[in-house]
């Protein structure tokens, strides 16, 4: 019985691994989009402001989620 549940646990871990490997990296895609759009639209000079704004957004969102 113990052995069965251990095997089940292992199977769950393996499934988790597969899930991780096929997962679409949305955050990385956004970063890449930002980088390319800044280049194409020549928004580089506003980068510092964007970062500050992004930081503010994260701070604002965290308490709201809780």
């Amino acid at each position: 019985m113990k052995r069965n549940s251990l095997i089940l646990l292992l199977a769950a871990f393996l499934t988790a691994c597969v899930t991780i490997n096929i997962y679409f990296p949305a955050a990385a895609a956004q970063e890449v989009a930002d980088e390319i759009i800044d280049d194409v639209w020549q928004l580089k000079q506003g980068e510092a402001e964007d970062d500050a704004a992004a930081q503010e957004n994260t701070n604002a969102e965290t308490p709201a989620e809780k």
Partner: protein
Amino acid sequence: MKKILLSAYLVFAFVLTGLAQAAPNLEINTPAINALKSSMQKRHNQLAPHYQSGAVGLTKNGMIAIRDAKAVPLKHRQGINQLVAAENADRGKLYKEIAVANGHPEWESGIRDSFAGRWIDKAKSGWYFQGKGGWVKK
């Protein structure tokens, strides 16, 4: 029992490897992507006035479209069709190239969606984008 512990250990090692791969950076520094970027960058100088006048807007699928051809003087209307078509061709290739360069051609639509949102977020005020119910002025 020892055997089970050993395999559990191995599985944990696999999980850690998986986690390490969970936050990858996407590769965008390839000749094809750089060429598309510089082509789009050059075209942007021609497109910017049309975004501002509302003649051209950003679509929700990461492309651009003619929104109000009347905002363009008659003699330039043919030119704007070509401009929009060329930009959309580059954008389509860009999304595909990023997916392919990272070994996951099936990511193309996810990458397109990411870009679609960011183009609109980064658009200047006064530019038009496609919202749920049609064109919206930013």
